């Protein structure tokens, strides 16, 4: 074992890595927002109990939660061109991550929706709220208060999941790590640095989301 660690050779690349991190974060935030919109829609459909639409959502969730995200993106990026549908790597990863996140978020939000008591909805009706007001003032605050820890969790997992964008040639944090690895061959140094960056980023995200949850929904999100 005659290996000497040279972290100094990685240092000039730090701004380059930071740029990659911005792309990673953009990917995770965009797909989380997209997944939330779709997931909320699907969760409401499942909760309303429409026979056909509810079953379709169940099939969607079962399929996307039981297959790997990597292979889903493979199908979108390499498979769909067979049918003349071409995506850029970033778009393919974004679509794959959004569809995958939507399935997991549907489950989380549905579980949250099912904790809203019928009495709360009755009380809202007694107060003369219409459906939109009930949603805004009763259902959603309750939902987010209950689901906040699981949502934080899902966001962290999605941030880690963005690393697979590197496989499709998106130059985000992991992708840039591979680039630096192939120019400097300082593999251990670069990958441990990137691992540390992921730890820092997800830790900041956990704290920020805990603060947002506490401030906006009075949710108790454990940080450690």
């Amino acid at each position: 074992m005659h290996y000497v660690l040279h972290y100094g050779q990685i240092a000039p690349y730090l701004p380059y890595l930071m740029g990659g991190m911005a792309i990673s974060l953009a990917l995770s935030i965009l797909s989380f927002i997209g997944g939330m919109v779709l997931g909320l829609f699907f969760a409401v459909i499942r909760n309303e109990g429409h026979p056909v639409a509810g079953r379709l959502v169940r099939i969607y969730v079962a399929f996307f939660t039981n297959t790997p995200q990597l292979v889903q993106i493979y199908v979108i990026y390499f498979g769909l061109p067979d049918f003349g549908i071409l995506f850029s790597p970033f778009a393919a990863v974004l679509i794959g991550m959004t569809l995958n996140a939507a399935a997991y978020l549907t489950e989380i939000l549905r579980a949250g929706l099912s904790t809203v008591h019928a009495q709360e909805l009755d009380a809202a009706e007694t107060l003369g709220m219409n459906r939109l007001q009930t949603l805004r003032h009763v259902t959603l605050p309750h939902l987010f208060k209950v689901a906040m820890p699981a949502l934080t969790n899902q966001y962290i997992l999605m941030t880690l999941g963005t690393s697979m964008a590197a496989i499709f040639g998106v130059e985000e944090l992991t992708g840039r790590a591979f680039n630096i690895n192939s120019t400097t061959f300082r593999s251990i140094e670069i990958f441990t640095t990137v691992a540390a960056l992921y730890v820092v980023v997800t830790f900041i995200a956990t704290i920020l989301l805990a603060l947002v949850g506490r401030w906006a929904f009075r949710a108790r999100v454990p940080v450690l």
Partner: protein
Amino acid sequence: MLSFLIAEIPRLFTIYNVILLLKAALTTLSLSAVGCVVGLFCGFLLSLARLSQRPIFWPLKALALLYVEILRRVPFLITLMIFFFGAQVLGFNASALVIAFISTSVISTAFVAEIVRAGLRAVKPSQMEAAAVMNFSAWHTFWHVRLPQAWPLILPPVFSYFVLFIKDTALASQAGVLELTQAGKILNTKGFSASLVYATVLILYFIISYPLARFGSYLERRLGASRHSRPRRAV
């Protein structure tokens, strides 16, 4: 295009290719299973270290906390690469499969430790106090009072983590391990249409994962862990 794909199906599903896919599926399953069994054992020890009260164990406790918090926040791909290149640096001449087994075990230890800790903490302190009143030793309290009550809370989430982890092992294909995704890549480079091959791989993953996921939710109902006392999935 569709007729072209349908014409390709009999060419794809020759005995040789089917055996390749099935062997790869077995590797996928064993990667996750070994990871979770090792993870359950090591995660147990880690969570014991984290729950210990005595000051002598304080450094161990800090180490366990660091291990869990760091390993859960590093993408699997990066961990795999660190082990992959780290093995070469250390002169550890291991195959990609062995490295994949080691890294799945290391990662799942962190996640399972969190599940075990949540399960052990869900047992009410009054139970342990009652045992202390009856003059049980620490070992007796743990083995006969705490563990039997925590077990039904630990097992279902560990099982669902095992099912979740089956899908994460797809990333092991990046280290060249011949598992399901890698088998798909091989078939694709042999000239079969990407849509057909990867759709087959997706369906195979679904066939593996869906019954296990259903069994997991059955296990959860059967062991009778109520929704409120169930430990949260690790962050």
